[in-house]
């Protein structure tokens, strides 16, 4: 399974989303990194 590169900046992701048309998936976590 390919590794997922998670971003941390929601607003930067939304900017990318507007450029690409892809939706953003926010994953809210409390798990240890």
């Amino acid at each position: 399974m390919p590794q997922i590169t998670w971003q941390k900046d929601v607003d930067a992701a939304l900017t990318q989303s507007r450029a690409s048309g892809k939706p953003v998936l926010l994953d809210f976590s409390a798990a240890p990194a």
Partner: protein
Amino acid sequence: MTAHFIPVKVHIKEQKQVFDRFGALWTPTQIVLDPDGEERHRIEGFLPVEDFLAQLELGLGKRQFQHQRFGDAERLFRSVCDEYPKSGGAPEACYWAGVAAYKNTNDPKHLGATGELLKTRYPDSEWARKASVWRH
């Protein structure tokens, strides 16, 4: 995942303000956002892989539906309904597949067929009850 989404991980200890901004009440929670920041789907609590994948696709379908791309929405909902039939999201996906098909064609037979399908496959689900008014 990255083929369909721009993934962002938000940790409670690092970005509590983002939890507050999107009203995340519990972890894990996943939210599908449109490029304009509008929420299209929310998943709360842990799910096994099949259920989780079904929910992600359900979210993609809702996004297409919201943008009135009913053919694409139906394809995504139908995929969940048919490919993940034992998932918790399947009854909802079957319901919305029927609605999307109706919106795409204006043919009420899709609603009737969906009501029958839900009655047969998921008779105890709330989605079967919601679709019960469509059965003839």
